[in-house]
C-alpha cells in the first residue's frame, strides 16, 4: 500500500506488475526507482531506531531514553551541516559526513564520561550526561554554522535535518541494511545481557555482568544504529523513544524478542509516517521528522496520565 500511494497514485495490481518489470514503464519507474527504495529505507530507519531505543532503555534503565540522547543526532547534524556549508553535496558525501559526525560525537561522549572517573555516580548516568553535553555543544556549533550560511545552504541543511526518506537511493538502502544487520544483530546477540543490566549495576555484577563494559557495548551499538539512520535519512525524532513502549505493551519483556519487535514496529511506523508525509498535502511533501514529532504529543500525554 505504501508503494501504491503518493503524488502519483499507482493501482495496487499494477504495483505487483511493476515489481516484476511488467506493464506501464512510468509505473515501473515510479515503483522500482522511487517508491520501493523509499519504502525500504523508511522501514530500515524505523527498524534501526526502534531496536536502538529498546536496547538503550533497557541498558540505561530509563523508559525515557532514546537513541539521540547520546549526542549522535547533534554530531551527525554537525557533520551534515559542515558538508552543506562547504558545498560538498555530492551523492553520498552528506551521508558519510553525517555518519562520521555521529560516530565522532559518541566517542567524544565516551571520553567526556571518563572525566568522571570509574564508577562516578553510576556509569550509565555519566554516559547520559556526557551525551547531553556533546549534544548541546553540537547544537551550538550548528547554530553558528547556519547563521553564517548562504540561503541555499541553509535551506538544504534545514531540510536534511527535518528528516526525509525522499532521497532514497539503492546505495543508501544497502548501507543502512548492512549497518542494521551488523549492529542490530549484535544487539540481539547480547540481548540477555541487557536483561541483566536493566536490574541495576550491583545486581548485574552479582549475576556476572560487568555493567561498565557491557553498558558501553550497548551504548556503542545503539549509537551505530542511530548514526546510520541519521546519515541515511536525517533526524527522525521520537521513533526510538515511542516504539519500545509499544513493543512492551505487546507484553514483551526479555530484550531479545523486545528488540526484534521494536524493529518491526518501528519499521511499520516509519513507513506509515512516510506515507502520510507524501499523501497528506500533495504534491508537496512534509518532512518525515515533522510527522514523527507529532507522535510525541500523544505519547507524552499518555505517559503523563500514567504517572498521575
Amino acid at each position, binding site marked *: 500500500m505504501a508503494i501504491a500511494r503518493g503524488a502519483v497514485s499507482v493501482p495496487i495490481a499494477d504495483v505487483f506488475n511493476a515489481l516484476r518489470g511488467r506493464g506501464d514503464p512510468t509505473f515501473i519507474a515510479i515503483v522500482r526507482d522511487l517508491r520501493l527504495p523509499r519504502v525500504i529505507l523508511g522501514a530500515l530507519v524505523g527498524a534501526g531506531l526502534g531496536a536502538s531505543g529498546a536496547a538503550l*532503555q*533497557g541498558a540505561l*534503565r*530509563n*523508559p525515557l531514553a532514546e537513541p539521540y540522547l547520546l549526542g549522535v543526532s547533534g554530531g551527525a547534524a554537525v557533520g551534515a551541516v559542515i558538508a552543506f556549508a562547504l558545498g560538498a553535496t555530492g551523492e553520498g558525501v552528506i551521508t558519510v559526513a553525517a555518519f562520521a559526525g555521529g560516530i565522532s560525537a559518541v566517542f567524544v561522549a565516551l571520553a567526556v564520561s571518563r572525566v568522571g572517573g*570509574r*564508577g562516578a555516580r553510576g556509569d550509565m548516568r555519566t554516559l547520559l550526561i556526557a551525551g547531553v553535553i556533546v549534544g548541546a555543544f553540537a547544537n551550538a556549533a550548528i547554530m553558528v554554522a547556519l547563521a553564517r550560511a548562504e540561503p541555499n545552504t541553509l535551506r538544504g541543511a534545514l531540510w536534511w535535518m527535518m528528516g526525509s526518506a525522499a532521497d532514497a537511493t539503492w546505495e543508501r538502502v544497502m548501507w543502512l541494511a548492512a549497518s542494521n544487520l551488523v549492529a542490530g544483530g549484535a544487539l540481539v*546477540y*547480547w*540481548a*540477555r*545481557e541487557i*536483561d*541483566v543490566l*536493566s*536490574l*541495576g*549495576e*550491583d*545486581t548485574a*555484577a*552479582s*549475576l*556476572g*555482568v*560487568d555493567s561498565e563494559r557491557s553498558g558501553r557495548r550497548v551504548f556503542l551499538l545503539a549509537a551505530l544504529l542511530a548514526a546510520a539512520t541519521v546519515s541515511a535519512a536525517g533526524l527522525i525524532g521520537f521513533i526510538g523513544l515511542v516504539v519500545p513502549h509499544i513493543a*512492551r505493551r505487546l507484553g514483551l*519483556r*526479555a530484550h531479545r524478542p523486545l528488540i526484534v519487535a521494536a524493529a518491526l514496529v518501528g519499521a511499520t511506523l516509519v513507513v506509515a509516517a512516510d506515507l502520510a508525509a507524501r499523501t497528506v498535502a500533495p504534491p508537496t511533501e512534509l518532512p518525515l521528522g515533522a510527522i514523527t514529532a507529532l507522535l510525541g504529543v500523544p505519547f507524552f500525554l499518555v505517559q503523563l496520565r500514567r504517572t498521575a
Partner: protein
Amino acid sequence: MDGVSFTVPRGQLTALAGPNGSGKSSIVRALLRRADIVGGAVKVDERDVTTFSYAELARLVAVVPQREEAAFPTRVREYVALGRYPHLGLWRAPAEDDARAVDQALAQAGVDDLAERNTDELSGGEWQRVRIARALAQTTPALVLDEPTTFLDVAHEMAIFELLSSLANSGLAVLLVSHQLNLVARFANTIVLLDEGKVASSGSPADVMKAEKLEAIYRWPVVVTRDPAVGAPALVPLRRPLNLFDQSTPTSSTRDKP
C-alpha cells in the same frame, strides 16, 4: 578500610555488623568489583576475585545488594529466573534443572505464591524476599546478603534467618551484613564487628556482644543481657532522652548481666 581481615567459611553463617558508615557495604561492593581495592584482596576459595571472570564469580557467589529498584516491571518468576543467567549465558535455553532451581528458590524465600505477580505490584517486604529468591536461584556455594531483612515483619524476618541458618548448615558459606544484632547473635556462628573501617571485635556472639565494646562503637548506652527464650546474648539500648531545655546529660549504666 584499615586492616580488615576475616574469613567466611563454608557451613557457617558469618555476620558483618557495625554502625552506619563503618564500611560493611563497601566490603560487599569490593567483592562485586564495583569498588577499587587499593590494598589487600578479596579471595574466593583462596583465589583473588580479580582473577575470576565475572561469569565464573557469579557461579560461586550470589549477592543480594542493599537496594535494588526494577526499572521495568516483570513477572516475579521471570525476574527470579534471571538468577540462572550465570549458568545459561547468552544463548542456552533453560532446562529442567534450571526450572527446578527457580521453583526451589521461590519456595525457599517464601514467595512461590507471588510467582505470577508483577514486580511493580509488590510491597517492600515482598520485593525484598523476591530479590533473595533471585540470589538463591543462582545455586552458588556462597551467599552474601546486605541488610536483607530491613522491610520484613517479625515472621518473615525470622523465616529468612532460619533459611540462612539452614543453608549454612547444608554447607553454604553465608555472609550476612545486618544491623539486627540480636537476631545475628542468635543465628550467626561468627560476628565481625566493624567500626570506622577497622575490625573492632570478632568471634562468637558471646565474645563480641560485650556492653562496653558495643557502647564504644555505637556511642549509645546499652545493656547486654540474655534473652529468655534461648539464652543468646541480647542487646538492650537504654534511653537517653533529649533534654532540649537542660544542659546536663543523664549518665548511663553499663553492666553485663549474666
